[in-house]
């Protein structure tokens, strides 16, 4: 096989392979059929997280009573 013919066959094979490959959308459908949906996070997750965070910040930054008395 000569150089040009080899190159031509390579190109043709590449086109064939591209056409034969499983499309990404089909692959994703197969993946989804195998892996059950992971439960989504609770809808109240964000507000609960914020509430916990606020509480922690308040506790950490509140001036302790002995320190307040010393200031007065």
């Amino acid at each position, binding site marked *: 096989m000569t150089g040009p013919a080899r190159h031509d066959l390579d190109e043709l094979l590449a086109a064939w*392979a591209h056409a034969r490959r499983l499309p990404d959308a089909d692959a994703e459908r197969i993946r989804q059929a195998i892996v059950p949906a992971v439960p989504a996070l609770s809808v109240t997750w964000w507000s609960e997280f914020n509430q916990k965070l606020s509480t922690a910040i308040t506790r950490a930054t509140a001036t302790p009573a002995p320190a307040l008395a010393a200031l007065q």
Partner: protein
Amino acid sequence: MPLSRDDAAVFTRIFDQHRHAVHAYFLGRVADPELARDLLQETFLRAWRRLSEIGPLPDARQRAWLFTVARNLTIDSYRASAARQAAEAALRHHAATQETTVAGPHLQAELRERLARLDAAIRRLPEDQRVILSMATAGGLTSRQIGEALGEPAGTVRYRLSQARKQLVGERLDLEEEA
């Protein structure tokens, strides 16, 4: 199996890493795109069920595991279809009588025609050559990776690949050499 986001992520990584190679293997073995797709799904379904075992394996061993399953499924598939000879005969008949579907409408008519001839020629290859050619082109595997997956020396893979290419050049594909 209890499902976690980590499990899904590990599986998705394995699936994305190996799906082209496994699909190419099935295309070479069974040629029927629908059956190849079904077998691909069954292979990865088994991988999902054994995720705790194969998830931690290195890439090459994951591939070896998947191809062991793929080979067994192919054998089962041959048995289920009653006779491998019948499947091969059907392949040859299909190649001789059916217009290929590999090319989309956007492709130029000439290229579509050449791809159809190539597809028919690939279907006429001996099975071992067809599988290796498919794994190398559609699967994107190296000769060494194909050898590891099929349990054959890389040199044998290269030889069969070379034989396949020689046979294809001998077909009327209107390669530049023949023009």
